[in-house]
């Protein structure tokens, strides 16, 4: 099967500093990679590069459709969560709401959500999009034990269904991950 993500010899310079160069990485369906590295090593920039928001200064990035969960909530603060998520649509929104236990929060305005609830909302948006490649930037941050279990289960199901995951995280991740150290 063809790869969902193929990075060849990518280099990225941010603010005059070389974050990484000669980076090769490819993810086939069902595969997942865990990007590690100290603060400021370029994990988030790598995510944004793969998402197409930053252009690599060298090398190439080819990828399938992606969904990104990073620090940006990208939900209208005044809207109830259900409507705010519906703006982004996605064929699997109902399933995503159930997966992350957000169904009872759909009428709550986004601005009243806690850190962990906001994180669940970001992940629900990723899952709802039905994109084959998930980019999760510190996705476990702010989640309680139940939230972590739900995320791990969602990742496992996504991979079983032929999806791939690229995750940047400081915490060890459950399951089989390829390590990518920056």
């Amino acid at each position, binding site marked *: 099967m063809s790869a969902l993500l193929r990075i060849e010899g990518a280099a990225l310079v941010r603010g005059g500093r070389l974050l990484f160069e000669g980076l090769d990485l490819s993810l086939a369906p069902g595969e997942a990679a865990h990007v590690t590295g100290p603060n400021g090593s370029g994990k988030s920039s790598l995510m944004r590069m793969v*998402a197409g928001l*930053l252009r690599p200064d060298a090398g190439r990035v080819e990828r399938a459709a992606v969904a*990104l969960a*990073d620090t*940006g*909530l990208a939900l*209208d603060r*005044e809207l109830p969560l259900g409507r705010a998520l519906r703006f982004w649509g996605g064929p699997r929104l109902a399933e995503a709401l159930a997966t992350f236990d957000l169904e009872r929060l759909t009428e709550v305005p986004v601005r009243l959500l806690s850190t962990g609830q906001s994180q669940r909302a970001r992940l629900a948006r990723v899952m709802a999009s039905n994109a084959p490649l998930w980019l999760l930037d510190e996705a476990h941050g702010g989640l309680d034990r139940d939230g972590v279990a739900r995320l791990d289960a969602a990742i496992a199901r996504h991979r079983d269904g032929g999806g791939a995951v690229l995750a940047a995280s400081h915490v060890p991740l459950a399951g089989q991950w390829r390590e990518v150290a920056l």
Partner: protein
Amino acid sequence: MRLVAREVRRALAGAAWLPVAFFLLVATIVPFAVGPDAQLLARIGGGALWIAALTAALLPIERLVEPDRADGTLDQLAIANVPEEIVGAAKIAGHWLTFGPLLLVAAVPGSVMVGLDGAALGRCLVALAIGTPALAALAVAVAALTAGLPRAGALAGLLLIPLAVPLLIFGAAASGADGGAALKLEAAVALLIVAGAPFVTGAAIRAARS
């Protein structure tokens, strides 16, 4: 269309009345500043309304693009393959819908403040109807150019006002008597601004990412 609806909803939930209230306030202080001479007021009234409209257009700039940049909405739209130019065009359309018509309505009491008669009010309304889409387009483009910068509000004012000068010249002239030729020139300037602004906005949004 959903982007336009989103802009309209956000503006209405925010303070869409604020620029209009500001417009009326500026129109109100003109007679205080130049005195109650009805003839003088009627002569400068059209121009005064245009200055009021221009300053009112500055007010909402900080909420037009920056919140969407800061909370990642612009990034998610890019990931969803929505071209930045479409985002810009939707923002302009949504902003005008909550700014232009309200301003035209406010221009009616505003014209009373600056002593315009019925015919002059009619000319002024036509000129403003043509000019407000361009003001909205300039506001969105400048908002995108300054999004994420420190002191963006003041910088936006410095950027927008010079860019709006051609519009102001022809718009104010079209509001006066014998303004037919000026009205055509105003329409030409407005068309140019409205057509170009989505591309400026799109480029600015992309540039802000790197």
